């Protein structure tokens, strides 16, 4: 028992060592540490002492004697160690000792909410183990008959008593933090939702009919694999001939089609809500989510069109992302149409799945919304990674245009010419619009998923959590605002992610509230306000005459200033610093309009 107990406490101690930013001595001179970071340091110190006491108890003759097999403790030690290993799959340490992120969940692992939940759990276990350890110290017979004698048993007893006291100290060390900053249910939920960094196995869509629930599960798997496939695409775009214009264009088409199918699914759910009248949703929120899908589709459609006149030195080579996006599109289509083997070629022959068949009862809503949410989140991530990858390809001189598509005054005696800067700017502009639309749609679905308790709500919680990074050993100093579009930081791309909150979110933070759900709502309000200001800006009279020009310009300028001041983390301010090539909402010199005619349903 004592040996197994020592293993459990040692693993708990290692968890805390992962969480602490510095040792207790250094912590005394730092004023930037939060309550939970100080709690982690105190718990870690106490557990280190407890582990030492237990190790000495085990080393004492007769100290490892068993009252009965400590099977539960041994299992707990193994499972805790395995769980810690899984958390570590998201992080790697480079030769300089700095921590590197290996998945989009890495900043969630190092976030304050997860730190809070983990320290709280460890302190709770410490409190559970303290009385057990004390009982063990007093248990008879402590030593087996062959033990050398009472003196040795007393040594073991002393060490166990000390260990029990240190465990009590560890359990009590979180009280100040709990008082100042209570642990939320969402923190623990987020901790439990962190998957391993390895993407799930592909589940190939076959001709065999899948139920709605199976389709939704398959979509979540494809989305997870898509997020993983996006990693490192910026680097690959520079050198890999397998990364092609055809691949990027196909992903844009898949994103547009997925957005369209999502819109149909969400509108169908909105109809079903009205039929069932009672899942806490009156359809308004679902229709709003469907509207955001329409905007996302239009934006990705623009990206698709921009690729018509651009090409890489290789035309089209299949990628992992294309395979997973293809699976996702097929299953989304099979949710919309009542045809088990639906493909895009079947659209004119298939009948739509009825709203009642899509969600026979209220409990089915969460799964379907989750599927839509997962798909949007994955394409939002691809929007980030593809935007960066295309920029990298342009810098590497990999983008060309067919000479035949150039105006007659381009006299190029070859079939391909380097892509004109204007075309690249238009392409990048389209990507940025798609990125903004995808992130906005992901936020809308974050809110919807949290409101109805869909399994995918952890995506929203994760997006909110990453803005609150805890200090850790080996971490880079806080988030670098210039690197916010890094494809390695999926969840960073949110209203919260820049570390510079909007006015409502800031006001909430000033109240010392860091509940992820409340912050999500605050950021959504910031988003809505920003969009309203932009809409109002667009509604200003056109500058047709000199008089209107004089009237309009100062107003537009001041509005832009207001947006910049009020929403420093907004998409406009978040643009990658891409050598000044990024147009602001201009495609080929024409204003980019998100709103496009929707397909007639």
């Amino acid at each position, binding site marked *: 028992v004592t040996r197994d107990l020592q293993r459990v406490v040692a693993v708990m101690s290692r968890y805390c060592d992962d969480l602490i930013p510095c040792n207790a001595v250094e912590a005394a001179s730092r004023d930037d540490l939060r309550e939970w970071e100080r709690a982690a340091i105190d718990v870690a110190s106490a557990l280190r002492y407890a582990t030492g006491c237990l190790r000495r108890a085990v080393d004492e003759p007769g100290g490892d004697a068993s009252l009965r097999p400590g099977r539960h403790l041994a299992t707990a030690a193994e499972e805790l160690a395995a769980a810690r290993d899984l958390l570590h799959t998201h992080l790697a340490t480079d030769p300089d000792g700095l921590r590197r992120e290996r998945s989009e969940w890495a900043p969630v692992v190092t976030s304050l909410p997860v730190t809070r939940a983990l320290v709280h759990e460890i302190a709770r276990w410490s409190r559970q183990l303290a009385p057990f350890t004390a009982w063990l110290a007093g248990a008879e017979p402590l030593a087996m008959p062959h033990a050398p004698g009472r003196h040795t048993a007393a040594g073991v007893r002393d060490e166990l008593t000390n260990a029990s006291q240190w465990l009590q100290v560890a359990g009590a060390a979180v009280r100040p933090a709990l008082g100042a900053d209570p642990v939320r249910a969402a923190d623990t939920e987020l901790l439990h939702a962190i998957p391993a960094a390895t993407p799930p196995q592909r589940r190939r869509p076959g001709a065999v009919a899948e139920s709605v629930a199976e389709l939704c599960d398959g979509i979540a798997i494809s989305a997870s694999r898509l997020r993983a496939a996006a990693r490192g695409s910026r680097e690959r775009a520079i050198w890999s001939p397998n990364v092609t214009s055809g691949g990027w264009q196909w992903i844009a088409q898949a994103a547009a089609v997925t957005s369209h199918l999502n819109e149909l699914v969400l509108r169908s759910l909105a109809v079903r809500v009205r039929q069932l009248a009672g899942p806490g949703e009156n359809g308004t929120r679902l229709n709003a989510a469907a509207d955001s899908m329409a905007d996302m589709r239009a934006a990705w459609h623009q990206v698709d069109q921009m690729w018509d006149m651009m090409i890489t030195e290789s035309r089209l080579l299949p990628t992992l992302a294309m395979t997973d996006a293809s699976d996702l599109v097929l299953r989304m289509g099979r949710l919309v149409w009542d045809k088990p083997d639906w493909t895009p070629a079947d659209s004119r022959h298939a009948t739509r799945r009825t709203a009642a068949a899509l969600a026979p009862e209220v409990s089915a809503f969460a799964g379907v919304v989750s599927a839509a949410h997962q798909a949007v989140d994955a394409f939002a991530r691809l929007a980030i990674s593809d935007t960066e990858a295309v920029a990298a390809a342009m810098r590497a001189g990999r983008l060309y245009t067919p000479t*035949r598509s150039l105006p007659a005054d381009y006299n190029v005696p070859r079939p391909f010419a380097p892509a004109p800067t204007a075309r690249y700017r238009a392409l990048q502009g389209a990507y940025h619009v798609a990125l903004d639309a995808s992130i906005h749609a992901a936020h809308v679905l974050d809110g919807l998923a949290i409101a109805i308790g869909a399994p995918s709500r952890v995506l929203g919680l994760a997006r909110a959590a990453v803005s609150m990074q805890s200090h850790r050993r080996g971490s880079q100093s806080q988030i670098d605002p210039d690197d916010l579009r890094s494809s390695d930081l999926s969840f960073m791309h949110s209203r919260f992610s820049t570390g510079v909150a909007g006015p409502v979110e800031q006001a909430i933070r000033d109240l010392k509230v860091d509940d992820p759900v409340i912050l999500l709502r605050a950021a959504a309000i910031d988003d809505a306000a920003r969009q309203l200001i932009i809409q109002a800006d667009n509604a200003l009279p056109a500058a047709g005459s000199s008089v209107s020009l004089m009237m309009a310009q100062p107003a537009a300028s001041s509005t832009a200033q207001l947006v910049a001041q009020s929403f420093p983390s907004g998409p406009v301010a978040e643009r990658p610093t891409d050598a000044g090539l990024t147009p602001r909402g201009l495609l080929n010199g024409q204003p980019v309009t998100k709103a496009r005619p929707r397909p007639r349903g």
Partner: protein
Amino acid sequence: VSQVELLRQRLVHADGMAGMLATGWEAFEFVRGVAGANADRSADMYPAFTFARGAAVSGRNAIAFAPSMPADQAVLFESATPLKGDVYEVADTLADLASALSAHLREAAGLAGDASDRAACEDAARDADRITELLAKGK
């Protein structure tokens, strides 16, 4: 004579590999323009038209890689007049054109003296087949 019929006639009477490639380019461009213009007309047909448009771009680009492809400027169909008829009739028309395009490209591939020309024609023919598969009514 409709644009579709004109393209069909030009495919039939294309002069040599260069002529076939140039006409193939224009046919794919036409499909791209029309499919893009019609995608928003029907929620049900949006996926098919979107991927058909993509296949047209892919086929056109495949042709562009052929060594015999003339480097002169081509007609673009950015503002192609939408075909008359409902969205399904448009899909049928494009599917028929793509089917004819595929047949001519395969024929050209069989006659090609240059391996790269042959590969380009075969790649483009596969994209034309994909357009037919996506848009044809008979399934």
